[in-house]
Structure formats: structure tokens, C-alpha cells
């Protein structure tokens, strides 16, 4: 089950903790994986690390700065060119935070997060959908966040972008459904990554206290949900949000 043999998958933010693990998991299922991120050298390291276990020929890198609209527009074409086949799976995982309380939040903090975390995924969906609709096949998995549903003090920008991503995904799912293309969302809870390492220990302890399963998540907790949604077996699931959060928010 859940094999992805020969399918071309593009994973953005593949140098980050969760993205790297998603790439690894898709690759383990047989997919041809194109890694994207801002830093070429890091992407190549990630590709080498995943490829060390075999299947190195099924790994490619396409560096892109998603705050640049033209770069986002061109990324799907780059992935298809590197992989030599049409895109079957798009995973919009890239994201960044600029946390601060709203009264101190600058327009720049707001715009940058909305650009990279919401506008860029839209651009990538738009580019990917054109081919997917024509081919009558495709899987889009957007990585949102639990805070897109619950909100979080200090993250008005990030929560807005992630909530936007969920609404966007549901709309695209309705547009693409008649062509057998699915669009789903995975909403991770608090996962141990560089993005959450910066939180103060006291806040982390408090967070863990609010998680019924009693621990922060690992990237390996998230990736299998993406594999499922990317698979043929998930062909009757669209517009859904899978919450992977240790029970922190049961929505």
C-alpha cells in the first residue's frame, strides 16, 4: 500500500526538519523526489543523505526563493525538467515565521509571512494544477499548522497564512475534483524542528503539558500523513485536513 513508484514529487522547504523527512518518506515509497529550498548546498546534502540508502538517481534539487514570485512560478517547470516527467505530487511545505505580538507587528513581518507561506503555495498550486488537470491525475498536499485552526498569540501572520492555506486547499479541491486531482492539508502540531527550537523552554514545557500524547512531535510523525494523501489509496479524500498534533487540538 501507499507505493509511489516513479511518481514525480516536488517538496518545498526540503532543507527544513519536516520537509526533509517528507522527502525521505516519499522517496522510500519509490517516488522521484525534487527537493526545493533556498540553499542549494543544504539541499544537495539532504539529497545525498536520502540517496545514501539507495535510489540516488531518483533525487533532484531545484533551489528557489519563494519570496520571489517569478521563482515560485518557475519552480514546477524546473522540477519537471530535472525529473524528466510531469509532476504527480506537490507538497507545499516551505514556510517561515516572524513571530511578535500584533501591536508590535510590522507590515513587513505580515507581508513576508503571507507571501512565503500563502502566496507562494498558491502560485505553486496554480502552476501544478495546469498540468494535473490536463493529465486527469495529481496530488497536492499543503502543510499548514494547528495554529491555522486554533490561533496562537504572537503568530497573527503565521496563523492567518496557515488558515488561508486550509481555505485555499478546500477551494482548489472543489475546482480540481472533477479531474481526479486531490488537494489536502496536513496540519502539524508542535514538532521539534529548528523553527520550534527557538521557543523558550518554559513555553515548550507548557506546550507539552497541553498535548495528551505527552510529547512534542517529530518530523517522522508528520511525513506518513503526507505519504498517505499522496498515494493512490487516498483517491477519495480531498479538501480534508489531517491534524497530526498529539491530540493538542481535536478538531
Amino acid at each position, binding site marked *: 500500500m501507499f507505493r509511489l513508484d516513479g511518481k514525480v514529487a516536488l517538496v518545498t522547504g526540503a532543507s527544513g526538519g519536516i520537509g526533509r523527512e517528507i522527502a525521505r518518506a516519499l522517496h522510500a515509497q519509490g517516488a522521484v523526489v525534487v527537493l526545493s529550498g533556498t540553499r542549494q548546498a543544504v539541499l544537495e546534502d539532504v539529497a545525498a543523505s536520502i540517496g545514501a540508502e539507495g535510489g540516488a538517481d531518483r533525487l533532484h534539487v531545484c533551489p528557489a526563493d519563494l519570496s520571489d514570485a517569478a521563482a515560485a512560478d518557475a519552480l514546477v517547470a524546473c522540477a519537471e525538467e530535472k525529473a524528466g516527467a510531469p509532476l504527480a505530487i506537490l507538497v507545499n511545505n516551505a514556510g517561515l515565521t516572524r513571530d511578535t505580538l500584533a501591536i508590535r507587528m510590522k507590515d513587513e513581518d505580515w507581508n513576508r509571512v503571507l507571501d512565503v507561506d500563502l502566496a507562494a503555495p498558491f502560485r505553486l498550486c496554480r502552476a501544478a494544477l*495546469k498540468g494535473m*488537470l*490536463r493529465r486527469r491525475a495529481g496530488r497536492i498536499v499543503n502543510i499548514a499548522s494547528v495554529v491555522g485552526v486554533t490561533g496562537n498569540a504572537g503568530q497573527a501572520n503565521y496563523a492567518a497564512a496557515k488558515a488561508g492555506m486550509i481555505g485555499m486547499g478546500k477551494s482548489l479541491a472543489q*475546482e480540481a475534483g*472533477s*479531474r481526479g486531482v486531490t488537494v489536502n492539508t496536513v496540519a502539524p502540531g508542535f514538532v521539534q524542528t529548528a523553527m520550534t527550537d527557538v521557543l523558550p523552554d518554559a513555553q515548550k514545557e507548557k506546550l507539552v503539558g497541553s498535548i495528551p500524547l505527552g510529547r512534542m512531535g517529530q518530523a517522522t510523525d508528520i511525513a506518513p500523513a503526507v505519504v498517505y494523501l499522496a498515494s493512490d489509496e487516498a483517491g477519495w479524500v480531498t479538501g480534508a485536513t489531517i491534524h497530526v498534533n498529539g491530540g493538542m487540538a481535536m478538531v
Partner: protein
Amino acid sequence: MSEIADKVKKIVVEHLGVDESKVTPDASFIDDLGADSLDTVELVMAFEEAFSVEIPEDAAEKITTVKDAIDYIEKQKAA
């Protein structure tokens, strides 16, 4: 038949997978050729690409038949 008309017809046949004989000037994409709303958008995008024209949303909405498409593109190309 003009070159544009030929090309439009070919795109419609290819895209909607219908028999060429059905693609008459008066044929409506949705009512006669089995297109859905997404098909009509994709058709317009295919026309834009094939003829290097831009078809704005309000004009696209009025292109419902094969003849509509041919007329619009011919007008754009003549301009």
C-alpha cells in the same frame, strides 16, 4: 475556412476529445460538446497560448460557442 478557424477547431477536438464533425461553428462547448466549466477555462487558456493573445475574464465568459472563439481571436489578430 480560415487558418484561425482550423486551429480553433483542432484545439477543441483535442481538448474535449469530441468528433471533428461535431465541432460546427454554432456548437456550444457546454451544451453540445459536453464541456464543463473547467473545460471552458482550459480551452480559453489553450487559445491564449496557441494564438498568443490575452483573453480577459469578461471576454472569456462570452465565448460559449466555436464561432465565438473564432470571431474573438480573429478580431484580436486583426487589431
